[in-house]
C-alpha cells in the first residue's frame, strides 16, 4: 500500500494530471502546422524513395516494401550494388522513442502492515525512453546482402538483435535465397514492424505465449533466431515460401541449452489481386522442434550446453493481410500451440531459473497427471490509413488454453485478452528521416496469474511518444 501511495499524483482536479500530455499535443499541433509528408532512412537515402513507398506507415511494410526485403533489400533496378552509392554513404539508421506513459497494474505483491503479503494496484506515470536500434543493412555486393542490428534496452545494455548475411537470387532465380545468422522468422505479419509500442500492447502475445508454469526454453515465435533460412518468391512476390532451421536457443548466443536441439520454421503465402480492394495475402506457418529437459550437473548446478532428453513442441496457424480499399487493411493471425507434457510440468529451463533445478529429468518418469498443454489464439489488427501521414490502428488479441498441463489447473489459467488502439502521425514525409507522433492505449488481462491470490491480473498502458529515426 505504501508503494501505491508513493506514486499518487497530487492535486485536486482529476483533469489536472492530464494537462501535460495535452499541452504536448497542442504544442506539437502548432509546430507541425506548416509541414507536409514520411521514412526508413538508410534505404530511402540510398534509393531516393520516400519511406511511404515501402511502409504502410513505418515500420510496417507494404507489399512493395515486402518485395524489396525479399529481394535482399534490392530494387533490382541496376542501382543496387554499393558501387552506385556516393562513397560517403553509410547504410545506418538509428531509432529511438522518448515518451511519456502511464502504466497501471491491478495486482502487485506488497508487504502488508501485519507482516504478510497482499496485493494492490500500482499506477505510475512519467517520462521514459525506449531501447535504441542501430539498423544497418544493404548490399555488400549485388545479390549479397546483410543486416546488422545492434540493439540496446532502455538502460543501454546492448545485444545483437539481427546479424545475418544473405545470398540473393542464386542461379539468377528469385526462388533461391539463402541467409545465415540471426534473423527474424519469415512471417509476413511482423512483430518487429508492428505499429504498436505501448507497455501492454507493444508486442503480439501469440508470438511469445508460454503456458503458465511451462518450462520450454523455446517457442518464441517473436524472437529472432540463430540459424539458416532458404526463402523463395515469384518475380512479383505474389508467392512466397521459406524454410528455416535454427538452434533451439531462443536466439541466445553460446549454445546455452541442448547438445543437439533444433527447430524448424516453415512459411508460405500467396497474394492475389482483388480489383479495387487491393492485393490480398493469405498464408500459413508451422514451427516444430525439440528442446532439452535434462542437464548434466556439476556440484548440483546444471552445465550450460549439456541439455539432453529432447522433447517436442509445435506452433502453427494461418495469417492473412486483407485490404478493404486503399485506406483500410486488416491483419489476421491465428495459432494452435502445443508443448510436450514434460515442459508443461516445468521441466526444461533450469538454466535461467524458470523452473526448479530439481526438475531435471534424470529418471524419465513423467510426473503423475502431466499432459501436453495446448492452446489456441488469434489476433485481428486493423489499420485505417487516412493518408500516408496519419494512421489509426487497433488490435484485439485472445489466447485460450484448450488443455492445461494438469487437470487440476483452472481451465482458463493463463488465458489472455489484449486490446490496443491508437494513432500515429508523421508530420513530414521525406526520404531522409522518419518522425512520428505516437499515441496509444492498451489493456491486458491474464487469467489467474496475480502473484498472491492467483486471480486475474490486468494492466493498462497509455503512451505519448516521439518515435524517430534518421
Amino acid at each position, binding site marked *: 500500500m505504501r508503494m501505491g501511495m508513493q506514486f499518487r499524483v497530487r492535486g485536486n482536479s482529476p483533469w489536472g494530471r*492530464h494537462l501535460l500530455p495535452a499541452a504536448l499535443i497542442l504544442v506539437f499541433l502548432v509546430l507541425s502546422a506548416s*509541414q507536409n509528408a514520411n521514412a526508413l532512412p538508410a534505404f530511402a537515402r540510398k534509393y531516393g524513395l520516400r519511406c511511404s513507398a515501402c511502409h504502410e506507415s513505418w515500420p510496417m511494410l507494404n507489399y512493395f516494401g515486402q518485395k524489396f526485403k525479399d529481394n535482399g533489400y534490392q530494387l533490382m533496378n541496376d542501382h543496387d550494388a554499393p558501387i552506385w552509392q556516393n562513397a560517403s554513404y553509410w547504410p545506418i539508421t538509428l531509432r529511438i522513442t522518448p515518451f511519456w506513459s502511464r502504466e497501471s497494474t491491478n495486482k502487485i505483491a506488497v508487504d502488508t502492515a501485519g507482516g504478510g503479503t497482499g496485493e494492490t494496484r500500482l499506477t505510475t506515470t512519467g517520462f521514459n525512453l525506449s531501447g535504441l536500434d542501430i539498423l544497418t543493412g544493404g548490399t555488400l555486393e549485388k545479390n549479397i546482402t546483410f543486416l546488422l542490428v545492434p540493439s540496446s534496452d532502455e538502460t543501454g545494455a546492448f545485444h545483437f538483435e539481427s546479424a545475418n548475411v544473405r545470398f540473393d537470387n542464386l542461379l539468377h532465380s528469385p526462388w533461391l535465397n539463402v541467409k545465415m545468422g540471426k534473423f527474424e522468422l519469415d512471417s509476413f505479419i511482423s512483430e518487429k514492424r508492428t505499429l504498436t509500442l505501448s507497455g501492454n500492447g507493444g508486442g503480439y502475445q501469440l508470438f511469445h505465449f508460454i503456458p503458465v508454469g511451462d518450462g520450454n526454453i523455446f517457442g518464441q515465435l517473436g524472437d529472432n533466431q540463430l540459424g539458416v533460412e532458404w526463402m523463395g518468391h515469384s518475380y512479383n512476390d505474389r508467392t512466397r515460401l521459406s524454410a528455416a532451421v535454427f538452434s533451439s536457443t531462443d536466439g541466445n548466443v553460446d549454445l546455452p541449452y541442448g547438445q543437439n536441439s533444433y527447430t524448424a520454421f516453415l512459411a508460405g503465402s500467396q497474394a492475389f489481386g482483388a480489383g479495387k480492394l487491393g492485393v490480398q495475402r493469405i498464408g500459413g506457418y508451422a514451427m516444430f522442434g525439440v528442446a532439452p529437459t535434462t542437464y548434466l550437473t556439476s556440484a548440483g548446478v546444471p552445465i550450460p550446453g549439456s541439455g539432453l532428453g529432447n522433447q517436442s513442441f509445435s506452433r502453427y496457424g494461418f495469417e492473412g493481410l486483407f485490404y478493404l480499399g*486503399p485506406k483500410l487493411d486488416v491483419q489476421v493471425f491465428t495459432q494452435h500451440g502445443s508443448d510436450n507434457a514434460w515442459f508443461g510440468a516445468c521441466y526444461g529451463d533450469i538454466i535461467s531459473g524458470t523452473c526448479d533445478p530439481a526438475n531435471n529429468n534424470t529418471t524419465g518418469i513423467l510426473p503423475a497427471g502431466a499432459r501436453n498443454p495446448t492452446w489456441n489464439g488469434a489476433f485481428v489488427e486493423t489499420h485505417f490509413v*487516412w493518408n*500516408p501521414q496519419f494512421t489509426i490502428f487497433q488490435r484485439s488479441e485472445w489466447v485460450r488454453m484448450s488443455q492445461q498441463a494438469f487437470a487440476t489447473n483452472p481451465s482458463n489459467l493463463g488465458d489472455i*485478452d489484449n486490446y490496443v488502439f491508437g*494513432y500515429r502521425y508523421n508530420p513530414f514525409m521525406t526520404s531522409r528521416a522518419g518522425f512520428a507522433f505516437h499515441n496509444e492505449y492498451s489493456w491486458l488481462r491474464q487469467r489467474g496469474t496475480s502473484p498472491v491470490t492467483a486471480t486475474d491480473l490486468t494492466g493498462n498502458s497509455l503512451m505519448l511518444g516521439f518515435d524517430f529515426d534518421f
Partner: protein
Amino acid sequence: MNTLKAAQFRVVFVHVVLAALCTVRVVAQDAPDVGPHPHQPLKPMESHIGHVTGHAKDAKTDYRRYCAGCHGDQGDGNGENAVWLDPKPRDFTIATFKCRSTPTGTLPTDQDLFNTIGRGVTNSNMPIWNTFTDHQRANLVAYIKTFSPRWEKEKAGDPINIPAEPPVTIESISHGKALFTKLECWKCHGPEGKGDGPSAATLTDSKDQPIRPYNFASGGDDARFKCGSTNQDVYRIFMTGVDGTPMPSFADTIQPNDAWDLVHFLRTLQVHRHSKENDVLKAAGGTIPPYVDKAAPSIQPASGAAGGGN
C-alpha cells in the same frame, strides 16, 4: 473484462479528444499539398487498359505515397529527391515519354504508360512497380495524364506495326553491323556498343541534362533496356525513337527487315548475355564477316568503328 476506473476513463477521454483535434489538422492539411493543381479540382481523367478503367481521382494517395518524392507533387520531375537522381525523374507536364509504341512526337498509349510503371526503368531509380494491382496502375496512368494539357488536346498515336522477326543468321548479323556503321550509331554507342562513342560525352536530353548512351556490353543474362528486354522491344525503340533524348526514330530511314538485322547485331554486342544471336556468331567462328550487298557495293566499316568480333 474489468471496467475501467473513472480516472482511466478520463485519461482515455482526453486523448481521444486530442486525437480528434489532431485528425482535423491532418485532414485539413491533406488537401492542399497533393495533386497536380493544388488549388484546382483534379481533372476527371481516365485511362483504359483492356477491360480496366483507371480514374485519376483514385490515384491521389498512391501518387503521393509512391511517386511524388521523385516526380513531384506537380508532376514536373522536381520532387525532393530529384536533385540527387541521375537520370532525372520524368517531367509529366510536358508529356514527352521515352517508352512508347507510338511514332515519335506523339503521345503514348495508356498501355505504354501502364507497361512502364510495371516494368520500371533500368539504369534509373524508377523501380519495378509490379506489386500494384491493375486498377492501381491504371489509376496512376490516368493521374499522370492530368499533369499536361496535351492529353486534352491530342489523342495518343497509333501503335506501330512490328512485323514477325526473321530468322537469325550470320548474314543478318553482318548486315546489322554494316547498318550500325552506316547509320552512325557508333558515334554515340561506341564501336563496341559500350556507350563510349566520340559524341557520348556531349549528349544532353531535351531539358539540357547530360545523358549517357546505352552500354550494350554491360550486364549479363538479366540485361534490360529502358523500354523492355525482348527483341521486339529493341525493334520498337528504333522505330519510335526515344523522345526527349538524342536517340531518333529510324522509321523513315530503314526498312523493317533492316531494323531486324540491326537488332540481331546489337544482341551480339551484349557479350555477356546468352542469346541466339551470340550462338549463331559462335557457330560462325566468332567473327562477323564483312557484309556483301548482292545488289550494291559492300559497305566498308569506318575506321575504328568495328564491332563484334573484329
